[in-house]
């Protein structure tokens, strides 16, 4: 459980960059008219005459090499294969579970994806003991950590619970923030999350769909952590956030008399 979040960190490296300017742009705003030296990157578009680069989102302007990107401040989660997300089972039938993964479609969890395939070689002469394939394993209302197997625009995303750190979560609290703000909760190379973990002594699991699972020693620490995460989400676009949050948590701890 200790190093849960590290698997998620790696995938966010491209979000965090030294050269993110703090200039807020809005849809339709002209980012540059110099189309010879710059190319439209993420969250941008060329106009019809190909003379201007225009922002599509409300976000922060970023220049990376010769690409102009807009890092969104608001938005929704789109599942991609390989994402680890926190899912809530909302419905089940003998064929599949229906999971809410905070995307436009419900995720589908088939029972064959909930049990480990037994090794074909068992005892000599005997067959390997396998878990029974049925939808009896989980109940409606369970919180699962799942991986997205396949996802595209047209079909419903397919999920699996077989893998490292995946499966049912018992205990703890799940909170959700805006999905585009998740990279800030993790911080550059996981700096923010390490700090939160050390100071509040809580286990945290951050996932790409904006849901965060946490479990601490007592409710006072958990409450402080939840408040800090919401504070990070609301101040995601400001400079020096990690240092400020560290100060905030230490001050709050003194104020509340915990530890």
């Amino acid at each position: 459980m200790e190093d849960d979040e590290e698997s998620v960190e790696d995938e966010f490296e491209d979000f965090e960059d030294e050269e993110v300017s703090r200039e807020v742009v809005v849809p339709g705003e002209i980012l540059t008219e110099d189309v010879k030296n710059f190319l439209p990157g993420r969250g941008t578009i060329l106009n019809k005459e190909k003379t201007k680069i225009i922002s599509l989102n409300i976000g922060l302007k970023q220049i990376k090499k010769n690409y102009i990107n807009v890092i969104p401040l608001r938005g929704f989660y789109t599942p991609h294969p390989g994402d680890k997300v926190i899912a809530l089972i909302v419905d089940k039938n003998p064929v599949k579970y229906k999971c809410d993964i905070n995307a436009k479609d419900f995720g589908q969890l088939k029972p064959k994806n909930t049990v480990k395939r037994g090794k074909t070689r068992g005892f000599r002469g005997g067959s390997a003991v396998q878990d029974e394939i049925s939808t009896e394993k989980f109940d409606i209302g369970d919180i699962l950590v799942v991986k997205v197997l396949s996802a595209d625009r047209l079909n419903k995303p397919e999920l699996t619970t077989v893998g490292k750190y995946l499966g049912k979560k018992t205990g703890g609290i799940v909170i959700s923030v805006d999905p585009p703000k998740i990279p800030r909760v993790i911080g550059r190379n996981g700096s923010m999350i390490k700090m939160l973990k050390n100071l509040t002594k809580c286990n945290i699991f951050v996932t790409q769909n904006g849901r965060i699972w946490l479990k601490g020693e007592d409710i006072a620490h958990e409450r402080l952590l939840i408040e800090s995460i919401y504070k990070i989400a609301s101040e995601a676009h400001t400079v020096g956030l990690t240092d400020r949050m560290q100060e905030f948590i230490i001050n709050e701890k003194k104020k509340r008399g915990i530890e």
Partner: protein
Amino acid sequence: MPLIIKDEYPETLFREDGKRLDGRDNNELRPIKMEVGIIKNADGSAYLEWGNNKIFAAVYGPREVHPHHLAKPDKGILRVFYRMATFSVFDRKRPAPGRREKEISMIVADCLEPVLFLELYPGTSFEVFIEVMDADGGTRCASITVAALALADAGIPMKSLVSAIAVGKIDGKKVIDLSGIEDKAGEADLPIAITWYNEEISLLQFDGDMDLNEMNEFLDLAKEFLKSIHNIQLDTLKSKYIKLQEKTSKNKKDEDKKGDK
């Protein structure tokens, strides 16, 4: 026998000093106030006060389409629900959606569709709920303005914002931003909406009588004022984030100063 009371309009729509009944010049907008992110459970939301108009807009999506047969396999759909509160006008407004509500819902959806990338979200819907709390002329223009703002606040990719304004003719004079009484008693009324990406006209409705030359003049006049409305929209969207940035950087500067001492 139902009692029929005819609407009574004043003989002239101008005061003795040459100003309009609400004290404005011919080329003067009503005071505009906008806010974003006010409805917590919506994906995006906005509030607009335009003179006496008070309008809320909430955006949800992308999400599944209900009823399911409306979903399109090749693109998403934009659904707009324009509703007026029963207390929004002088006589009680019946809460059921009538001909007028359906028309305005449709034109607002058609007006906003060109700026969205609906083809990226097949089988889904974006839903915009517009609730008019207080109405005093020009609610369709105000609805378009506030709906565009709510869509941007929801983080839905857009080519640009959309702004709208009504121009018209009252007592033979060109005026901008007609109020309720000017709308009813005036001679002509021309609501215009513009998408700022390529500056194309997205809505053009016309009621009354004017000739073609006048129409061109009205379009030129409207464009000038649409720009000022667009600036207010941009400021509203940005100010929410810039205020926080300034606040934090200010605190940091103060601390640095303390450290220097």
